[in-house]
């Protein structure tokens, strides 16, 4: 009898462990963070759930499970492990794949040796993200096979299969999941673990040197593999022909939302619809044609972009009408739900309690009580109050919450590291003072190269590094380098030591902090103010550990 449930993220980590991985690399990002956290927790405990003692193949002891500076560095480390013949997983959130896009796209061309699985957790509905890009499109762009599990059990099983597939076809596999699978728990059956790969460095380094002459060959080879990738999708897709009136294509998690409504549909329509469940890409065109031949109308259910739907629609129209996101049966934005699927199936809403007459006002997220960022922004706002025109660019992290009342302290938040570059550009365009506010983890992630630009060109910006020694928003993971190393790094890239100020981000230091920030705002040239204090969440976590 099962006594424990595992989260989708954990199921993937467990699948990877039991597939015999030697290494895992990641940068924290909701909803993917718990993959690396699982590896690290199991390693610390010396055991993983659902596995008999020792059944992890002994790989936990030697498992390399590391947070990295960013998704690109994580991805490149993964490539090195594959080159050496070891199985390796790299995980990130959807927007992290943008950062890792360069190694990602090119990794489809190299001759993967040890299996490489890249897990990308999409966040439709933007629970904790700035966009809802669909990583299936990214896999397609790279001409890479993409697996999309629907349940925790499939997440486990397909991860294991993905490693075999990766080695068999010498290509990385992208596992695409979405928030609700990543962060829901269920019981899974684990299987005995496979041993780790012995080290066996690639015997074909030409397959890893992407100079034009070699890359052209590799590209031809990748294009030639597409049919094999498609064959996998065809074989894994399940076509259950039933009624003629409606055919439903359900991709990944959408299959579970459909299942919630099938009994009611059968009762109201006098029978089941025909259903094609898809769990991998490129799309299984033969099975889709078989479905189309057997039904009068097709409804496409997928989370994210109308990726499959658009391929079905084409330009000239097909043999059967298609319903989905393009035709308005389902919304183009937001996450899918059992209720949206119900509506798309033409079923009436179930009768629930009436919404409360007393409407509950929204409760936006906010800084934890006592968060150092609150004190930092209070000081910044006061220091800026003398200036009629300024720009405050911020970044991705808890400190973005300063966009909301009562702070209203930041004016931009675009992508990881953007604050520094935007401040630089704003300064060049004439805005003064040009301020960037970034966390220490995000600074190392991708703020640093922007600061090198500013220093090299002597751009007049004031950079506030909100240094709490952690990645707060994702649950307080350690920053890649300790706080103590920030000053030497800043000095090393050429920031004038006279304009590196280290302040304690606390109310009690408010007056002194305002004065110091004012001085640096007045300085013409790059200056950096470090506002240092521990994250409350991190302290809680340390206490509980």
């Amino acid at each position, binding site marked *: 009898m099962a006594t424990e449930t595992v989260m989708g993220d954990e199921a993937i980590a467990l699948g990877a462990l039991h597939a015999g991985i030697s290494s895992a690399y990641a940068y924290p990002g909701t909803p993917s963070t718990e993959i690396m956290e699982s590896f690290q927790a199991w390693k610390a405990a010396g055991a993983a759930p659902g596995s008999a003692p020792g059944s992890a193949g002994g790989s936990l002891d030697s498992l390399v499970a590391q947070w990295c500076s960013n998704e690109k560095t994580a991805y490149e480390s993964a490539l090195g492990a594959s080159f050496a013949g070891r199985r390796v997983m790299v995980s990130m959130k959807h927007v992290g794949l943008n950062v890792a896009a360069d190694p990602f796209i090119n990794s489809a061309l190299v001759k993967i040796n040890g299996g490489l699985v890249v897990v990308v957790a999409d966040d439709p509905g933007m629970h*904790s993200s700035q966009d809802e890009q669909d990583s299936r499109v990214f896999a397609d762009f790279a001409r890479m096979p993409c697996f999309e599990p629907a349940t925790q059990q499939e997440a486990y099983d397909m991860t294991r299969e993905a490693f075999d597939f990766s080695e068999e076809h010498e290509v990385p596999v992208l596992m695409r999941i979405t928030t609700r699978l990543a962060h*829901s*728990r*269920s019981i899974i059956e684990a299987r005995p673990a496979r041993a780790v790969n012995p080290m066996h460095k690639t015997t074909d380094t030409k397959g890893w040197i992407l100079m034009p002459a070699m890359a052209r060959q590799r590209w031809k080879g990748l294009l030639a593999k597409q049919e094999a990738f498609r064959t996998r999708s065809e074989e894994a897709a399940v076509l259950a022909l039933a009624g003629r009136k409606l055919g439903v294509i359900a991709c990944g998690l959408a299959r579970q939302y459909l299942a919630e409504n099938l009994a009611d549909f059968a009762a109201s329509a006098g029978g089941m619809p025909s259903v094609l469940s898809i769990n991998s890409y490129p799309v299984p065109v033969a099975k889709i044609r078989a479905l189309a031949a057997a039904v009068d109308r097709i409804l496409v259910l997928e989370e994210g972009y109308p990726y499959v739907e658009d391929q079905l629609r084409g330009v000239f129209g097909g043999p059967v009408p298609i319903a989905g996101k393009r035709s308005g049966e389902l919304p183009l934005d937001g996450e899918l739900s059992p209720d949206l699927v119900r509506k798309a199936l033409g079923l009436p809403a179930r009768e629930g*309690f009436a919404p*409360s007459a007393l409407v*509950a006002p929204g409760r936006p997220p906010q*800084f934890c009580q006592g968060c150092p960022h609150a004190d930092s922004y209070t000081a910044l706002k006061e220091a800026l109050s003398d200036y009629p025109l300024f720009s405050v660019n911020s970044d991705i992290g808890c400190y973005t*919450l300063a966009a909301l009342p009562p702070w209203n302290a930041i004016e931009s938040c675009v992508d990881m590291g953007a604050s520094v570059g935007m401040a630089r550009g704003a300064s060049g365009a004439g805005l003064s003072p040009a301020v960037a506010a970034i966390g220490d983890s995000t600074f190392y992630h991708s703020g640093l190269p922007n600061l090198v630009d500013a220093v090299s060109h002597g751009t007049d910006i004031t950079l506030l590094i909100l240094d709490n020694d952690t990645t707060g928003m994702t649950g307080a993971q350690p920053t890649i380098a300790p706080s103590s190393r920030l000053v030497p790094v800043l000095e090393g890239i050429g920031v004038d030591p006279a304009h590196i100020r280290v302040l304690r981000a606390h109310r009690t230091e408010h007056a002194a902090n305002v004065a110091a920030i004012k001085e640096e705002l007045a300085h013409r040239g790059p200056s950096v103010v470090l506002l240092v204090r521990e994250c409350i969440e991190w302290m809680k976590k340390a206490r509980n550990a």
Partner: protein
Amino acid sequence: MNYDMILAGVGGQGGISVSIVIAKAAMAEGLRVKQSEVHGMAQRGGEVLAHLRISDSEPASPTIPLGTASLLIAFEPLEALRYLPWLSAKAGSVISAIAPIKNIPNYPDIEAVLSAIRSLPRARLLDADALAREAGNARAANMVLVGAASWLLPLPVERLEAAIGEVFARKGQALVDVNLAAFRKGRDAAR
């Protein structure tokens, strides 16, 4: 058998322990469970909605369809009102703590909130904080709510108590005892 629950609270309230206790008790009964959690930004003091489904067969969706939940457990009263449409009109019940978390400037009049909950069919309000303090620790308020819910859950009381023992064992016997006492206070209060 399907029994779906909505767990509503404010980020940081630690409602996750409630989901784990009930899920463990259900699994000990040989049932299948599916839990859906919220991680990330909303955990910073925002509205947090978790789903817990128990069934004799594997629940399909990680989230509960509208109009089908049997029980809404709210760790904060305003949050109880936010998620009413998830409850089945025929069979849904509400168990809510009364203590407000006023971290927004436009928090409605608390008496209006509580009377809106009282006017619902099958609703129960508890001073979970006070009962938990009586049990020995205000932080055991969540187990008071599980105790109150124990009359409704399709699970034997002993299973729930055993699950509490298991979940808090790591933190020492004293915390196990406090949480069990809180559970019993909640159960008695909702009798």
